[in-house]
């Protein structure tokens, strides 16, 4: 293996392992929200996009309805379509390989692939597939561990699991707040969600906060 190739594999594996372990938090949050261990594992196997999975169980835990949970999770997943758009000309896959590529098209696999661009298209493909497959493996493994762990622990509040969920959302949000503008959008979204909480049925303030994204993104700055 050349040095470049080895470096790509190292990048990919370190991301896959790190992100995969966050699956523990999802597994625990999902069981605490009332999903079974089987349902929790199917979430990670079939939905396989962390923020959307957290959002779906988060809305349910907040007392929101199924439609609100599904819509919030799907809206959070729309960025994956833009990742697919970027990855399609790099991967050039068809048939079953395209289906597999789409399934592992997430923040991490796309980011690692794009970072490899100076090493050429083969490094990008290698980075994408190893990150995607590795994250899939570890994310599912740790989801199962988290789900079984939460089930064994019992009362979620007693172990702080009900606070682990907002902390996880904060942890997912934090690295995205790279500019003052984005921090303002986050703070306005939080204020908006707080204000509408008393007017809207439980769970709806979350998806309603999309109007803040639309308001800020409507015009060019």
């Amino acid at each position, binding site marked *: 293996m050349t040095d470049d190739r080895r470096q790509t594999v190292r990048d990919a594996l370190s991301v896959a392992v790190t992100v995969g*372990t*966050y699956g*523990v938090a999802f597994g625990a949050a999902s069981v605490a*929200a*009332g999903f079974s261990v089987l*349902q929790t594992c199917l*979430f990670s196997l*079939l*939905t396989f996009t962390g*923020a959307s*999975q957290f*959002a779906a169980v988060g*809305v*349910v835990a*907040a007392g929101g309805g*199924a439609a609100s*949970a599904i819509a919030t999770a*799907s809206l959070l*997943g*729309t*960025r994956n*379509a*833009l990742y*697919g758009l970027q990855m399609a000309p790099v991967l050039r896959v068809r048939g079953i390989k*395209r289906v597999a590529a*789409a*399934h592992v*098209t997430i923040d991490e696999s796309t980011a690692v692939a794009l970072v490899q661009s100076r090493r050429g298209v083969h490094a990008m493909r290698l980075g994408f597939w190893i990150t995607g497959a590795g994250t899939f493996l570890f994310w599912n493994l740790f989801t199962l561990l988290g789900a079984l762990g939460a089930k064994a622990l019992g009362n979620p*509040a007693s*172990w*702080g699991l*009900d*606070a*682990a969920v*907002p*902390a996880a*959302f*904060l942890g997912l*949000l*934090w690295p*995205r*707040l790279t500019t003052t503008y984005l921090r303002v*959008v*986050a*703070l306005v*979204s939080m204020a*908006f*969600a*707080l204000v509408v*909480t008393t007017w*809207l049925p*439980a*769970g709806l303030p*979350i*998806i309603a*906060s999309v109007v*803040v*994204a639309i308001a800020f*993104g*409507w015009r060019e700055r």
Partner: protein
Amino acid sequence: MSSLTAWIVVGATSALCFSIKLFGYYVPERWLAHPRLQRVNALIPISLLSALVVAEGLVQKTSVVIDHRAAGVAVAVGLLFAKAPFPVVVVGAAAASALVYHLH
């Protein structure tokens, strides 16, 4: 939440999230290239994740409540400012919240 509701959430979320991913591989680039769509799409995760922090940390049903979870969120904020890694943030928040929960 009934078992049926849970299955509907798992099934529909999975089907929609996968369809969205696959969609990206089939649409012509110009469809998603509209600047307004790109700008709004980039902000959607920020708005939703922000609202989720509030809904999960400070809200009980339809009212704003400051309880043990708020202590956890406060610790999470502190740890994030201190550049702690994700697992430390989550475990730290859980520990703080559990502590306050048991003290009450």
